[in-house]
């Protein structure tokens, strides 16, 4: 119980009261477990199975209450787990045993189980049992009702779940990315899937009291989706998702405690959603923002290159163009900044020597590209795109060298500079290959 002990000290330091400490710790634990297990659900494209499963837990909670007549958290959790499991089996039976597709099957399981749950819940409420008050906390969650025993139970369950994930990391990884291969190399996929689903059920059950059946799915999907943006490695993704989940839990719990009438569950969900938004926009490499900038830069480079070639075409042998003939002000400035053109006499523009080299390089590039499209891809001449393409990024080096060698043999007349850094290949040895 060192986590709990550590946290209690931390809580005392901050002067947090008993209830808030429980809420924060409970939410953090829930976010951690939900984030880690959500990764597998998201990677296996089963994000919404968690939703169906959470809704399916409701009748179990109600039945457990009706049978035991008490709202001891453990009993209700067992009930929730059992009916969540039955929901998963029903889902599987519908998809395998009929023509109903997975989306509709999810909808059927989710809504019918939830309907049964609501029916039982209202029945319990109307029997006027005094102990029932607070059973509806399982709908949207009511973190304030968490007591220390609940938090301890959640922590223990989480520890068990995380330990299993740690022990079976390799197996779960294989199952998530290549189930056929997993089966082929001898991991039994069915027991593993069953185990993974069970772990997700446990995570859902852990979250029921805090965020409720309706919103639980967000704590599975959001941290995992956010973590996915920052890394391509599963281990790091799990760690990040756990971190994001726990962070959402703590932020949500603290905010809802500080601001009156701000329910905990929805606040946690919004915190997690905000993390996703930030990640999708700003994560290095995958961030939508960076991709947009990259695309913009690329387009700009192509524009400038096209202008340079136009300029060279117009300039012809004289090497100068009169200023009024040029309309593209911004692009022209860009050319100048790169030192490719300079101001000549009589308000004309002249290509600088570096500019001329660049033009020849671009022409060479275009010639190689055309050749590639015409020969290797067998495109008809009219379909060949004449723009300057950045083929160095597209074509493998071998192909590029071959094409360039061919060109060099045929075009001895005009020396076109190679792209910088290209290995010079003697045409003779190239032909001998």
């Amino acid at each position: 119980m060192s986590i709990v002990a550590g946290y209690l000290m931390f809580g005392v330091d901050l002067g947090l009261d008993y209830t808030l400490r429980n809420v924060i710790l409970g939410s953090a634990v829930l976010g951690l477990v939900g984030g880690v297990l959500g990764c597998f659900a998201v990677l296996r494209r089963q994000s919404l199975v968690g939703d169906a499963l959470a809704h399916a837990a409701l009748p179990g909670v109600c039945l457990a209450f009706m049978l035991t007549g008490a709202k001891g958290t453990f009993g209700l959790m067992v009930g929730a787990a059992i009916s969540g499991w039955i929901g998963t089996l029903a889902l599987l039976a519908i998809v395998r045993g009929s023509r109903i597709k997975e989306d509709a099957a999810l909808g059927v399981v989710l809504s019918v189980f939830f309907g049964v749950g609501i029916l039982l819940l209202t029945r319990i409420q109307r029997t006027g049992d005094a102990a029932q008050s607070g059973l509806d906390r399982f709908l949207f969650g009511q973190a304030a009702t968490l007591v220390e025993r609940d938090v301890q139970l959640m922590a223990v369950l989480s520890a068990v779940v995380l330990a299993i994930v740690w022990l079976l990391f390799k197996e779960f990884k294989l199952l998530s990315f290549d189930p056929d291969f997993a089966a082929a190399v001898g991991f039994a996929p069915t027991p593993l899937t069953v185990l993974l689903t069970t772990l997700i059920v446990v995570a859902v059950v852990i979250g029921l009291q805090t965020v409720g059946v309706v919103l639980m799915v967000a704590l599975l999907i959001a941290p995992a989706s956010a973590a996915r943006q920052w890394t391509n490695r599963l281990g790091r993704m799990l760690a990040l998702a756990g971190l994001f989940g726990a962070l959402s839990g703590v932020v949500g719990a603290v905010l809802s405690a500080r601001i009156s009438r701000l329910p905990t569950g929805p606040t946690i969900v919004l915190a997690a959603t905000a993390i996703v938004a930030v990640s999708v926009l700003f994560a290095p490499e995958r961030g939508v923002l960076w991709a947009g900038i990259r695309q913009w830069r690329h387009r700009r480079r192509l524009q400038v290159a096209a202008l340079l070639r136009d300029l060279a075409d117009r300039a012809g042998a004289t090497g100068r163009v009169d200023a009024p003939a040029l309309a593209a002000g911004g692009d022209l400035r860009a050319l100048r900044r790169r030192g490719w053109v300079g101001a000549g006499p009589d308000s004309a523009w002249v290509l600088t020597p570096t500019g001329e080299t660049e033009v020849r390089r671009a022409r060479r590039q275009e010639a190689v590209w055309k050749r590639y499209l015409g020969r290797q891809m067998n495109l008809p001449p009219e379909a060949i795109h004449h723009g300057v393409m950045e083929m160095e990024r597209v074509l493998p080096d071998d192909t590029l060298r071959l094409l360039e060698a061919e060109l060099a043999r045929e075009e001895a007349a005009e020396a076109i500079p190679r792209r910088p850094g290209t290995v010079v290949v003697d045409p003779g040895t190239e032909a001998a290959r």
Partner: protein
Amino acid sequence: MSSELVVIITGVLVGASCALVGCFLVLRRMALLGDAISHSVLLGIVGVFFFTGGRSALLMVLGAGAVGLLTVSLVELINRTGRVREDAAIGLVFPALFSLGVIFVSRFPSRVHLDVEHVLYGEIAYAPFYRFELFGLDLGYRSFWMLGIMAALDLLFVGLFYKELKLATFDPGLAAAIGFSPVVIHYGLMAAVSATTVVAFDSVGAILVVAMLIVPPSTAYLLTDRLTTMFALAVGTGAASAVGGYWLARSIDGSIAGAMATVAGLLFVAAFLLSPLHGLVARLLRLRHLRRVFARGLLLSHLEGHHGSADLATLRCRFLWNARTAAAVTRGAVRDGLVRETTSGAYTLTEQGRGAARDVAAG
């Protein structure tokens, strides 16, 4: 009119209008978008409450329709970034919008007269208490007007665009090729789903709308291969769920909406097991029938090929049949006069059996 009847008719109207648009959701594999819309519609309702302070039916429908379309476009937007897959995108959008709705309800209880119970169970039991008044004239029950108009609009939508919807559902490529814009059809359908959802929401609550949208059409889908029949069956199942749900809720004293979903679920299970076309039992029977036909074919061609007779032990050994299968196959063949048992306990073909064996060989 007795209040009981008002509630039942309200339920039937909910079931019918939801089932109508739900059919397309199920067929176009967009059931989960319906689920997402039904959750996020809460935000639209709350927003209208918050900004206008009233519960004007028209504004509610418009607000909810707007949020419904917002949900669909957000899912699409996230999906198109390529960073998050569609299932996860749906699971990101609707909990966030639903959370916003719940937070609004709890933050501003004085301006938003909704309580959690209403959001979840709806107020179908109160349908007899709300009446529709215009210029001081009492025109009858409000739920009848709202749901009736909605059902009529849905019917109109499906009726007018039947051909377009059908084609876009079953052959989107052809539909796009001959000029029906898939985008218009998609968003039109989503608008219809959103509007229907919000009207039904009032009666059965957020999550149980999903039950009415998806479960009856899924049930109908198990029962028929024809679209028009599917509409009729879905509407019928939806209405039956409403009536049965009312009865169930009355007899065990629980939420009517919950009971409606429960009955819809029971009807689905019945269709899943017993549908003559696609039911589990029918499938198993067909499988058993095929197995029998195949086994009889084996028996006949074996006897034909070995000029005459074989005893049970030979057959069992030859075809790896267990005692029960061997007995059943021979008994059936004897009964139908294809095979007869000789005094030594072996089986030979009859004249009729030889004909049948030649048929088997001819395929």
